[in-house]
């Protein structure tokens, strides 16, 4: 399915049907990743229950250095 991640469209395997599985696929499950799915910011506890669909828009952000 096609999903827009951080502003770019990506073709991802259909079995990445929820946020947790998707993060795991990209080996990001051990990092602090904050996910916004279609304008809804998710708590980590919501990742597994948040379904990913064709055409969804996601933002995956992290903490980086700043002052």
């Amino acid at each position, binding site marked *: 399915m096609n999903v827009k991640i951080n502003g770019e469209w990506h073709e991802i395997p259909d079995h990445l049907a929820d946020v947790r599985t998707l993060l795991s696929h990209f*080996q990001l499950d051990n*990092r602090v990743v904050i996910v916004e799915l279609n304008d809804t910011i998710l708590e980590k506890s919501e990742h597994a229950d948040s379904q990913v669909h064709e055409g969804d828009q996601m*933002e*995956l*952000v992290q*903490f980086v*250095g700043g002052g």
Partner: protein
Amino acid sequence: MLKIGNFTFNSRLLLGTGKYPDFETQKKAVDVSETDILTFTVRRMNIFEPQQPDLLQQLDTGRYTLLPNTAGAENAEEAVRHAKLAKASGLCDMIKVEVIGCKKTLLPDPVETLKATEMLLEEGFTVLPYTSDDVVLAKRLEEMGAHAVMPGASPIGSGQGILNPHQLDLIIEQAEVPVIVDAGIGSPGDAAAAMELGADGVLLNTAVSAADDPVKMAEAMKLAIQAGRLGYEAGRIPKKRYAAASSPMEGMSRT
């Protein structure tokens, strides 16, 4: 002790995490600074680089209170969104409001800063707005409920030190919440001067991260802030126009 909202800190140095030459240097600098509060920002990650360095893992962040900023936000709504993203990490409740109104000077937008502060307070955040050294604006932020006010000493990253100590003095004098001097600090002398004015803390980044020896500068800043605070608490002497001898004038032996 520095108290901000429900949080209490031993250190009065708030340290930024941007622009260090490498992670190892940063880790050492953070360590010797003995800071309790580290600032961060939120940015998109590269999903195809799972091995990219993770600042949080490098820094053993369990030891620190994280203070994410809203840097990059151009209006209150963007600042609130960034704050909510940061909070969704589950790692922090404090937020440094940073809404820039001018790309060249990076000076804060007072109107949007005020608006963002109000919105974030309603959302239950512990809110620390970065503001200009405007005395009335600082008061307005405090009256709104900001948990601290953070006036700049001079433009971000400029290292120009305290351009208007009089303004900072007035802000500190009137404030009932902690005043953290944020931005523009260049040297340990600047940091000590801010603390001598009565600031409750200093937030700096570039002064350490871009120093020739960031680790040594981190220690210098720690000591400067401690010295400045002690000096403030001790109460400096008033300035006099003429000399006042330190040694007794009586009993001088002459041949």
